[in-house]
Each structure stands twice: as C-alpha cells, then as structure tokens.
C-alpha cells in the first residue's frame, strides 16, 4: 500500500482527488478536436491510464493515511465543495478506473467496426465525459454535486448508447426511453436533496449526516429519503425501475455495453449506499423498515423475475442485461440485510459482478465483431471458430452462476452467510432458486456455443478479421482470469468490501 501511495510525486498526489475528475473532462474536449478516431482513442487511452494510476494512488493514500478530504478551490467544507474519499468509494474508483482502462483498450477494434469514421472522435469525447461523470459521482462529498455529475454521466451515456443506431435503429428508441426515465430519476433525486437541504441547511454529505443526527427526523426527511431512493434506484436499475436497462444494453455499441454494465449501475448503487447509510442512519426507524420491506423484497423479486425473463430472451445481450437486473437484486438483498456482513457481501458482489459482466459483454462484442451475431441461436458453434473468446465467455458465465472456483461463488457464499447470520432462510432459498435460473439461461448460451455445430459458411473467418482481436482478447481474458484468480486470492477484494462496510457502519 505504501508503494501505491508513493506512486506519484507528492505535488500531484495531493491533488489526485481533483485530477481524477478534471483530467477526463479536459481530455474530452481534446478528444473532440482530434481529426481521426485513432488519435482520439490515443487520447482516451492516455486518460484512462492516468485515471487508473490516480485511482491506485488514491487507494494507497486512503489505506495508509485514512479518509482524504479535498477542499475544491481551497474553500473549506461544509461551505465549499468537498471531494471525499474513504474506504467506501475507493473500491468504486478502482473499479471505474481499471475496468474503464480495460474497456478502452478493447474499444479500438470494436468502435472502428461499429461507429462511422467521422463520428469516432466525438464518440470517444462523449465517452470521456461519461467517464468523468461516473468518477465525479463516486468521489464528491457534496449532495448537489452528486446530481450534477450523475447528469453529466447520464447525458453522455444517452448519446453513446444512441450511437448503436449504426447497427440497429432500436438503439435510438432505447436511448430515448433511457433519457426520459433517467431524467425523471435524476429529478426525483434532486427533489430529495432539496428536501434534505430544507431540513439541514447544508449540502455537504458528512455535514448533513451530522445535522440529521442532532435534529432527528421528521416528515421532510422521510420524504427526502423516499425521493432519493426512487431516484437513485432508477439509475441503479432497482427492480421495478429497471425497464430502461435491457434495451439500452442490448442495442448500445458493444464497448459501451461492456463499460456501462460494469460501472454505471454500480456507481448509482454506491450513491444509494452513501445516502442510505451515511446520510440517513441505518438505525433510524423508517430506514431500518425500508431495508426489510423495500430493499430486501425488491431484491428477491428482482432475482426471481428478472432471471426468469432472462431465460426466455432471444437476443444474447438482452439476456445478459436481464441477468444484470437480477444481479442488482442480489446487491439490494445484501443492502437490505442492514448488517455490516450484508453490506460487505453486497459490495463484494458489486465488484465481482463488474468482472463477470465486463468479460461477458466483451466476449459477445468479440463474437459480434467477427460474425455480427446477436441472437442466442446465432452463437451456435462459436466454440470451434473462436475458442479463446468462448473460453473467456464460459469462465465468466460460470462465475455468473456461482460455480465454485470462480468469484461468483465467493460473493454468493458471503451473501448466504450474511443471510444466515440475519436468520433469513427465505433469502437463502431465493438465492439458490435464482442461481438455478441463472444456470438455465447460461446453459442456453453455453450449449449454443459448445454443443452445436457451426452453420455452414461461418467456419472460414476472413483473414483481415483475425488481425484485430488481440486488443479484444487481452482485456477479456484478463477479466476472465480475474474471475478465477480472485477466488483463490479472495483477500484483496473481500478486504476492500469489508473495509467499505465498516466505513459506513462504523467500527465492528
């Protein structure tokens, strides 16, 4: 950890929390002016590397020196805007930084295939804005800032999802629906923040928590809680509010889907944890009630219904998108337990799910890159024509089911342990049933890939296509390998998840 903390010179390290947001934002403008897609990709890659290094450095700083509070522009909190990094948001920063970097490496061949040449530079620019927005939501310690960054990331997300229109025009309607729902969600969130501001007179998250603890809760803060949960729930694809997600993931460019599936909903989920646990205390009556009667219930229903829906999808990416909704359900269930064990299981699953879904969507992107396939039945026989991608896909999908020797098993194990500790047998049963459903939809994909013979005419790959994929294969294999590696070396991720839970639950 000391090594990570001293990764950068002290002068830069002090400003790392600000730089991690500012660099992508400025580079977005630079990328927009690049005359060629390749150059813009270069700018994006440099930015992603910088962000990954900064996030590692921040991890080092927080582990050695404790909570970082960065006063933006020298204005001290609570009046000024504070960037605040503690053990809860460090995992998210790392996740966005590192998975973002892998996705960017993956992006070049994928984007070259899917986006028109003259739009590529602008596409990368929009991606960088989205990247900056997600990092901003994660790192800021100011409630209104969360809204602004949430919208920065969302608005650019709408545009990059709509870029899938080159392959399928339904990307446009998917993006439009996401825009309408996302804006409603963000507006609900901002109403909630407004109510909190009325009740506390401050926008700083830590300060808000302190004032609320002193003044207690009334109907205004209860309304604020409801609005914030609905608003962030929409962004995080909490079960009944997930309708925007399947189409958005199914029709966006492959690179965008891989990136969003492993970061965007995770960041919104983090914001939800931040508000529910840090601003409102989990021991407050109505919050405690919402755990059992809202988050746990919604989580279990999501695990069942969304998994069930996934089984019957014909489009492979839509299938995985429904599975994402189900996986958000697992996280909600962990959150709903309201214990440190539950929350840390939830955080662990958040990170592991990013590893799985990143690899899965990248593999589907690789299939689409070579053969243009999207539907489950079109995956037939890819195990023979694209063995490496298929292997990565297989590992990640087994991880999704929770087969031992993969990280999926680790996080489900922790979830089950936490549920048993709480005495929630029904939750354990739900986890098992949902895992079986996951097995059902994963089996459909895997049997198509490995069992069926490739249709005639697909066996011969055009030679030009064979050159590109190392940039596709490397990040994908790395993520798939991480799915196995972190089963055997679970300590780093489990440690991060535990520290995150302790940071908000206080002690134990």
């Amino acid at each position, binding site marked *: 950890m000391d090594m990570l903390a001293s990764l950068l010179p002290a002068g830069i390290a002090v400003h790392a929390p600000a730089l991690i947001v500012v660099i992508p934002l400025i580079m977005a403008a630079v990328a927009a002016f690049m005359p060629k897609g390749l150059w813009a990709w270069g700018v994006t890659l440099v930015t992603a590397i910088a962000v990954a290094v900064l996030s590692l450095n921040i991890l080092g700083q927080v582990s050695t020196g404790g909570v970082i509070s960065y006063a933006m522009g020298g204005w001290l909190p609570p009046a000024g805007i504070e960037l605040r990094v503690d053990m809860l948001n460090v995992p998210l920063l790392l996740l966005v930084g590192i998975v973002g970097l892998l996705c960017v490496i993956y992006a070049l061949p994928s984007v070259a295939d899917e986006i028109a040449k003259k739009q590529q530079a602008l596409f990368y620019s929009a991606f960088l804005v989205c990247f900056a927005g997600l990092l901003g939501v994660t790192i800021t310690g100011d409630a*209104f800032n969360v809204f602004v960054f949430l919208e920065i990331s969302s608005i650019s997300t709408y545009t990059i999802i709509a870029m899938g229109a080159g392959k399928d025009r339904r990307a*446009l309607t998917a993006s439009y629906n996401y825009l309408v729902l996302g*804006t*409603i969600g963000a507006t609900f969130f901002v109403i909630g923040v407004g109510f909190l501001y009325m009740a506390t007179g401050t926008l700083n998250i830590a300060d808000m928590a302190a004032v609320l603890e002193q003044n207690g809760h009334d109907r205004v803060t209860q309304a604020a809680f409801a609005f914030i949960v609905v608003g962030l729930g929409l962004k995080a694809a909490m079960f009944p509010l997930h309708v925007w997600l399947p189409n958005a993931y199914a029709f966006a460019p492959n690179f965008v889907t891989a990136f969003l599936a492993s970061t965007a909903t995770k960041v919104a989920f983090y914001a939800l944890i931040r508000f529910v646990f840090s601003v409102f205390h989990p021991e407050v009556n109505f919050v405690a009630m919402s755990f059992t009667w809202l988050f746990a219930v919604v989580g279990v229903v999501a695990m069942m219904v969304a998994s069930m829906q996934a089984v019957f999808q014909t489009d492979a990416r839509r299938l995985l998108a429904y599975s994402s909704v189900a996986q958000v359900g697992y996280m909600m269930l962990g959150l709903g337990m309201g214990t440190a064990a539950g929350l840390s299981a939830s955080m662990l699953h958040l990170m592991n799910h990013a590893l799985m879904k990143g690899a899965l969507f990248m593999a589907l992107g690789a299939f689409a890159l070579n053969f243009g396939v999207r539907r489950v039945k079109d995956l037939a026989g890819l195990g023979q024509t694209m063995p490496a991608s298929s292997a990565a896909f297989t590992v990640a999908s087994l991880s999704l089911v929770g087969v031992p020797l993969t990280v999926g098993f680790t996080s489900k194990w922790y979830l089950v342990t936490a549920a048993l500790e709480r005495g929630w047998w029904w939750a354990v049963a739900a986890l098992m049933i949902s895992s079986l459903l996951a097995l059902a939809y994963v089996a459909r994909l895997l049997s198509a890939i490995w069992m069926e013979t490739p249709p005639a005419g697909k066996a011969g790959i055009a030679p030009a296509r064979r050159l590109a994929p190392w940039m596709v294969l490397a990040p994908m294999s790395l993520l798939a390998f991480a799915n196995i590696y972190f089963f055997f070396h679970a300590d780093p991720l489990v440690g991060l998840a535990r520290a995150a839970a302790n940071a908000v639950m206080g002690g134990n």
Partner: protein
Amino acid sequence: MLEIILERFSYIPIIILMMTGLYVVIATGNLVKRLVGLSLFQTSVFLLYITMGKVFGGQPPIIAGDAHGGDAGHGADAAAGYGAEAAAGHAAETAHHVAEIAYSNPLPHVLILTAIVVGVATLAVGLALVVRIREAYGTIEDDALNAADYSLETGSAE
C-alpha cells in the same frame, strides 16, 4: 386549516406543475410532447428550490455597503486604500450589517442555475434523438415505433 394552506401557498403551483409534467410524460405517445412534459416536471423542481431560498422579510442577498452606498466589492477596495486599521473597522461594520438584516438565501438560486443547464442539455439531447428517430422510422408516435420494432423482431428474421 386555511392557515396551513396559505402558509404553504407556494407549493400548490409547484405540485400542480409537477403532476402535470409527470402526467404528460406518461400519458402522451408523442415523443416531443413527452419531452415537453419532462421539461415541465423539471421546471417545477426549479421553482421548489427557488421558493426554498425565500426568507420572510428577507432582503435580496447583497451585502449593503457603508454610508457611501457602495457594495461589498467597493468596500474591499476602499479598505485596501485606507490601510489595515480602516479595513478592520470596515469589516466590523459589515459584520454588524449582516447581523441585523435578514437576507434571503442565495444558494438555491445558484444550484438551480446549474440544474437549468442540466435541463437544457437533457432537452437538447432528447430533441436530437427525436430527430434521429424520425429519420430512422419516419414517425415520432410511440405506437407506430413499437409496431415498427415488433415487425422487425418477428417479420424480418433472417
């Protein structure tokens, strides 16, 4: 009862606007009208914030200067000119002013400026998407779009 309502008078138009906007978003099948509803919904929240900043009997939040009638910036200039002693006295005087006058809260207005920018950006992206949808489908009615997509999924299977 009447008193309770009158005290909260400012919320009535806000709630009406909010519900109208949300209803339009849900009820209409026209994509442009839906964006209109969305804007209305957002605007109601802007109003909510603005009314939040109003303090009864509060002045506009501009720190009044001294007898010269200057504003805070002018006061600071003057203080720089007259040296440290004068500056200290001036600061005390300003503090005195602040203590006795109730000001409205300017912060919500600033927040809403940001939120308006966000709203405009959302609306712009939304309208751009509607233009592209019209180009791709030739319609901006939800039913027609669904029908077109449905036929795409079932009819033209390879």
